[in-house]
């Protein structure tokens, strides 16, 4: 029952729900990546983030990235969820779970997905700073 599930949501992401049922009897490894809102970026104190997506295209592009991961690596179920709207410090912005028979493929495909997501998927992040300014970020963060 391998599948590829990709979504953009404005609801809080529950890591346990993202993991649930991802591994089949054939899988020996699961890697879950969580992106979390930090309290600073480039030395500026961040109060919150606002994410905006071109939702229809973002879901299609996530699906392409997930399919590429499945074509390149020996992986089973892949789930990718990205949140939009206002996020507070410590909240999860993106969750990626990958199950695989072997751990190398699980790690490598997870990493592939987050790197491609940050390059290609039409989602934007605006940082709200403690002093009140809000700025759209251009380009990926580490």
């Amino acid at each position, binding site marked *: 029952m391998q599948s590829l599930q990709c979504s953009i949501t404005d609801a809080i992401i529950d890591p346990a729900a993202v993991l649930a049922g991802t591994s089949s009897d054939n899988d020996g490894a699961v890697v879950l990546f969580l*992106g979390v809102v930090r309290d600073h970026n480039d030395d500026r104190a961040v109060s919150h983030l606002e*994410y*905006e*997506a*071109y939702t*229809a*295209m*973002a879901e*299609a592009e996530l699906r392409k990235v997930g399919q590429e991961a499945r074509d390149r690596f020996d992986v089973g179920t892949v789930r990718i969820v*990205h949140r939009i709207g206002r996020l507070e410090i410590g909240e999860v*912005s*993106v969750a990626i779970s990958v199950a695989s028979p072997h751990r190398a493929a699980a790690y490598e495909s997870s990493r592939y997905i*987050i790197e491609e*997501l*940050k*390059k*290609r*998927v*039409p*989602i*934007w*992040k*605006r940082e709200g700073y403690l002093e009140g300014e809000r700025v*759209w*970020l*251009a*380009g*990926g*963060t580490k």
Partner: protein
Amino acid sequence: MIIRTLFFASYKDIAGSDALDIELPEGALVSDLVSQLRACGDCWNDLPASPVAAVNREYSPLSTSLAHGDEVAFIPPVSGG
């Protein structure tokens, strides 16, 4: 023909709107849509001359020719994750 044109993030601030219906002559390319927008002056000059664009939710070159009812989105540098 009418082209549904979408703006996100910083481009939405430029356009002052998240979506505009733009009238273009038949056979126009995405690059013609960009030129027409930038010709409006004012903050429209802040739209890059060669922005990344998507036609009907697929990344597409500026040389793509448009048809009535197409949806064009201009994509600022993405920053998801």
